[in-house]
């Protein structure tokens, strides 16, 4: 619990905030300490200036010392100046005697006239009044005849130590504060950049797919909130893989079941055919021969029905594998028809082929699916259009679609023949004259059962490949169009 708390991003963020607050407080404290130390140091380093008397006290003292001058000799004045200089090193002093001559001076910053007229003296007094430097004028010996002594001191010497320190270190204090704020911003930025980088890496890792199309597990490097998210993602991947494995197992079981069922049904059917064939090679009555032929036909029908039932079961469960490819449809139909041609020929069909150019000759289809679709259609033609003995396979290039058209001369529809699922029967299709797609000629009701499932497979497979189709049945024959609508964007 404790370890997790320290690995938590929230805890880290709170730590940064507290650190920032702490740093601010610490910095104020440090400034205060620095100031107090500075004041002490300043006080010591400024030779008693920390105990600087007020301007009024200095003025009074200067007047008192000036009044004590007796003879007005230069030596006496000098001694007084030296005493004051020792006490106030920043001070400048001078003495103008009773005749108005500049008799003595010490550390005066400006150039002074050697003879002081009344006008200059008045101007000097006026300029120094309330100004900087702080100036005190006192009569030497307390009489105007002794002349006057002047002391001047820069007013800053009377400033409090805090202001002096601020004037000296203020810039660095501001720089320090800004540095602390910038440091906080930098740490925050690095913290969030780290989070962002890991989130981006996580997002990228989530998009990587394994060979089975599922996401791959992520390496978890830290145990914080993002680490927890990665753990959750990994758990989800494991569950997905498990689910996929179960699904594949189920699919495999279903396929095995269908394959075994197919095997178990076809094996006895082969035995029946063997018996029928053996019987057929012996001399038989006309009736016997017909019975053998009917048995043969039933075997063929059963075979196709089993095939269709298996395919339909897989299609209904969406387990019939589809692998779409770009296929030259004219070539495909031609080659496929070539495999059926001998059967039509054997049954005495007239086969007409007119496979001309279409707008889009390349269709995206699964050749196995398309082959099965055509197998079902041709099978139905063979079974239900025997009387017409005619099949016409052509292409149609219309504005809205390209189509493969298969026509026969069966004797027409029997809407009540079918009890099987209807292939896409929609009342909105004006060209669908029959309601079942059974293509069943009159007089072949029993034969046509099973054609419905065949055409349901046709319907499902064509729709599964994004194709359309329609069927038109008339007493003169049946026309099936397998259409590729020109609005398709897949090619």
């Amino acid at each position: 619990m404790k370890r997790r708390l320290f690995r938590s991003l929230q805890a880290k963020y709170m730590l940064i905030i507290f650190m920032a607050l702490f740093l601010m407080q610490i910095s104020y404290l440090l400034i205060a300490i620095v100031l107090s130390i500075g004041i002490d140091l300043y006080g010591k380093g400024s030779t008693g200036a920390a105990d600087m008397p007020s301007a009024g006290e200095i003025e009074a003292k200067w007047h008192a010392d000036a009044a004590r001058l007796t003879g007005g000799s230069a030596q006496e004045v000098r001694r007084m100046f030296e005493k004051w200089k020792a006490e106030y090193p920043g001070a400048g002093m001078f003495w103008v005697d009773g005749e108005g001559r500049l008799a003595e001076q010490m550390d005066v910053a400006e150039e002074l006239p050697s003879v002081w007229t009344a006008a200059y003296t008045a101007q000097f007094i006026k300029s120094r009044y309330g100004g900087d430097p702080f100036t005190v004028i006192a009569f030497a010996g307390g009489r105007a005849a002794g002349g006057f002594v002047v002391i001047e001191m820069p007013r800053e010497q009377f400033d409090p130590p805090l202001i002096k320190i601020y004037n000296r270190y203020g810039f660095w204090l501001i720089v320090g504060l800004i540095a602390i704020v910038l440091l906080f911003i930098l740490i925050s930025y690095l913290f969030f950049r780290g989070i962002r980088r890991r989130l981006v890496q996580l997002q990228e890792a989530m998009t990587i797919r394994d060979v089975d199309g599922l996401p791959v597990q992520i390496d978890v490097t830290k145990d914080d909130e993002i680490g927890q998210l990665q753990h959750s993602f990994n758990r989800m991947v494991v569950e997905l893989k498990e689910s996929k494995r179960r699904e594949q197992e189920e699919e495999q079981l279903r396929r095995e079941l269908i394959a075994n069922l197919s095997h178990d049904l076809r094996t006895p059917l082969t035995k029946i055919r063997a018996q029928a064939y053996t019987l057929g090679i012996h001399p038989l009555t006309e009736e016997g021969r017909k019975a053998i032929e009917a048995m043969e036909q039933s075997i063929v029908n059963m075979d196709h029905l089993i095939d269709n039932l298996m395919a339909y079961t897989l299609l209904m469960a969406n387990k019939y594998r589809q692998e779409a490819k770009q296929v030259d449809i004219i070539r495909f139909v031609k080659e496929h028809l070539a495999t059926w041609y001998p059967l039509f020929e054997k049954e005495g069909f007239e086969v007409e082929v007119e496979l001309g150019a279409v707008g889009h000759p390349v269709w995206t289809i699964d050749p196995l699916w398309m082959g099965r679709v055509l197998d079902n259609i041709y099978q139905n033609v063979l079974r239900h259009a025997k009387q017409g003995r005619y099949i016409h396979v052509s292409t149609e290039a219309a504005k809205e679609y390209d189509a493969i058209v298969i026509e026969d001369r069966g004797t027409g529809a029997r809407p009540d023949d079918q009890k099987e699922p209807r292939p896409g029967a929609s009342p909105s299709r004006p060209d669908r004259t029959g309601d079942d797609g059974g293509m069943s000629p009159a007089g072949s009701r029993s034969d046509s059962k099973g054609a419905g499932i065949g055409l349901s497979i046709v319907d499902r497979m064509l729709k599964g490949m994004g194709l359309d189709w329609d069927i038109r049945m008339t007493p003169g024959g049946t026309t099936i169009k397998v259409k590729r609508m020109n609005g398709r964007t897949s090619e």
Partner: protein
Amino acid sequence: MAHILYVEDELEIGGWVTRDLTGRGYQVTWLTSGEGAEQYASRADIAVLDVMLPGLDGFSVGKRLKKEAPDLPVLMLSARSSVEDKIEGLGFADDYLTKPFHPDELAARIEVLLRRAQRFEDVLELRHLNVYVKAGRIVDTRNQQEIVLTGKQYHLFQYFLKNLNRILTKEQIYEAVWGEPYIEGDKTLMVHIRHLREKLEIDPAKPEIIETIRGIGYRVRR
């Protein structure tokens, strides 16, 4: 006489097929399981295998046979009709026929496979022609004259013979013989067929050897 190795565990079906093929002039060795089938690999001209067998299944037997004798044609004869089974079977086998089959179809497929593997009879009779396939000779039986074909005509005719009784589209023929994609409207194939007919047919205007299947292609039928 071609030797057929036949593996089928269903006694009724096995007996029937063996009788039928023997009646058609083949020598048949019938085994009821795949065990020991490999020892016939070198002696047999073709193997016909059921898929669901006790012990080793037909796919495994077929693969072992192919390993022993890669040129041996293998025909899978199975009641398993799913696409997956067919794809698995055709991964190594040369043909796949589903039950319930007609014995004529089985015999026809065996004949095609034997011919493709050049394990068929020396002389192939086609109407008035005797074709000595292994020797590459064609003799007109009316006058015993040998018909000489050009290289391309010979390849073309060979391709028809390998696909005897099969309807071949123009695209299939052109791509197999010329080794290039067929371009719609190209007359090269038609010209070669015409020249071939002039040499082979009694009346090239009414061809009997190389049939035209309108709208689809051509066929040489026995």
